[in-house]
Structure formats: structure tokens, C-alpha cells
């Protein structure tokens, strides 16, 4: 008598046959993070050449804070989803909430530090905090291109 194939709880929840559109959308989050890294490298360089090195430094710091903020946001949402569907390693709810709150503390500390050290680069820091928005805009443009080019 053939035995049924073993399946993990997480794989049982995922559909086996994925369409091309689903494959494209599944890679959205890694693409956004890669876009953030590329923009975090390029934008401070451009700002340093065009404006001043202080603005570039502030922009780099803002990009770093924004990337960490986005990373912790992703981890927090994954932990929340794990708790809801009872998958993965169980994490404490306090830890998830503390990580959510620590993001704001980090952003406040970075803004306070750069405001006291060099107020001129504050605008760079504020601009750097919009890194996720720029990366999401890049992803939207990429998905629009893919949809038009491949007809997904």
C-alpha cells in the first residue's frame, strides 16, 4: 500500500502550482530590499558631490536608519504572522512589541544626535528616512514594466 508523502505544516498551506504573476510578486520584498541597498549607496554619493559632504553624511545615516527600520518592521510582521498561523519558531509577543517600539527609539536617537552634532545635515537625514518609499516606487515601476512587457 503506497504511503502518502510527508508534508510539513507550512508547505501544506502553500499552493504547489504558482502562476508567473505570483512568482513575480513573491520576489517583491527581496527586490525592495536590494533597491534600498543600491539607493542607500548611490544617493549619499550624489548628494555629497552635488550639495555637501555633511548632507551626504546625513543622507547616509538616514538611509541606514530607514533600512534598519524596514528590516525590523519585516521581522516584526513575520513574527506576528508566525504567531497567528502557529508556524515557525514561537517568538514572545513582548519581544515583537519591544522591537516595534525600539524602531522609533532608534529613529529618535539618530535624529537627536545629528541635530545636536550638525544641524546642517538634518535635511539629509530626513530625506534618507524616505528610502523605503523610493524603493517601493522603484518596485512599482518594475512591476508595471513586467506587467506591460510580459502581459502578466
Amino acid at each position, binding site marked *: 500500500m503506497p504511503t502518502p508523502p510527508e508534508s510539513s505544516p507550512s508547505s501544506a498551506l502553500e499552493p504547489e502550482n504558482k502562476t508567473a504573476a505570483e512568482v513575480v*510578486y513573491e520576489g517583491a520584498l527581496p527586490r525592495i530590499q536590494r533597491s534600498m541597498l543600491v539607493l542607500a549607496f548611490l544617493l549619499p554619493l550624489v548628494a555629497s558631490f552635488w550639495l555637501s559632504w555633511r548632507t551626504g553624511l546625513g543622507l547616509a545615516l538616514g538611509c541606514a536608519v530607514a533600512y534598519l527600520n524596514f528590516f525590523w518592521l519585516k521581522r516584526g510582521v513575520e513574527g506576528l504572522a508566525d504567531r497567528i498561523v502557529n508556524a515557525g519558531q514561537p517568538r514572545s509577543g513582548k519581544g515583537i512589541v519591544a522591537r516595534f517600539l525600539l524602531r522609533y527609539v532608534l529613529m529618535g536617537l539618530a535624529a537627536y544626535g545629528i541635530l545636536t552634532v550638525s544641524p546642517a545635515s538634518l535635511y539629509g537625514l530626513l530625506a534618507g528616512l524616505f528610502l523605503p518609499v523610493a524603493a517601493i516606487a522603484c518596485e512599482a515601476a518594475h512591476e508595471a514594466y513586467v506587467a506591460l512587457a510580459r502581459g502578466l
Partner: protein
Amino acid sequence: MRKLSYLFMILSALCLAVPAFAQGGEASTVNWVAITSGFAMAIASAVCGMAQAKATAAAAEGLARNPAARPGIQLALILGLALIESLALYTLVIIFAKVK
């Protein structure tokens, strides 16, 4: 006819009130930009917090009802939370630009 008389009465009252508008007082020393900036930041933070709570609650409910839809819901929640946070940052930037 009665409506017309009321209209003329109101107009005459306004004409009498015009000199009152011309009375100059002392120059206002209240920094209204700072006060309204504080209110704007408070309102933006409160509304963004409510929006994040609503988005998270809806995503949690959707995940509990349909765990198979986790990848889509998770992606939408992460992007939604990031964009909602950026709205509060827009307000902060405008405040920094206006209050110097």
C-alpha cells in the same frame, strides 16, 4: 418683502461693523506656526497610529481566516505599514521646513 428687509438690515449692520475691523491692535506675539505645527504632528501621528492599528488588525484577521494567503497578506502589510509611517514623516519634514 420681509426677506428683503432682513437682507438690508444685515447689510446695514455689516456696514456699521466695518469700522470695527479697522481698529488696529497690538502686534500678535504668539508663534502660531509652532503651535499649529505641534497640532499637525499630533494629528498626523494619531491618524497614522490608527491606520497602522487598523491595517494590522485586518491583516491578522485575514491570516487567521485564511493562513494559505500568508505571503500576499504579509507583503501588503509590510508595504502598507512602511507607507503609513512615511506619511507621518512627511508631516515632520514639512514642520522642519516651516519652523526654523
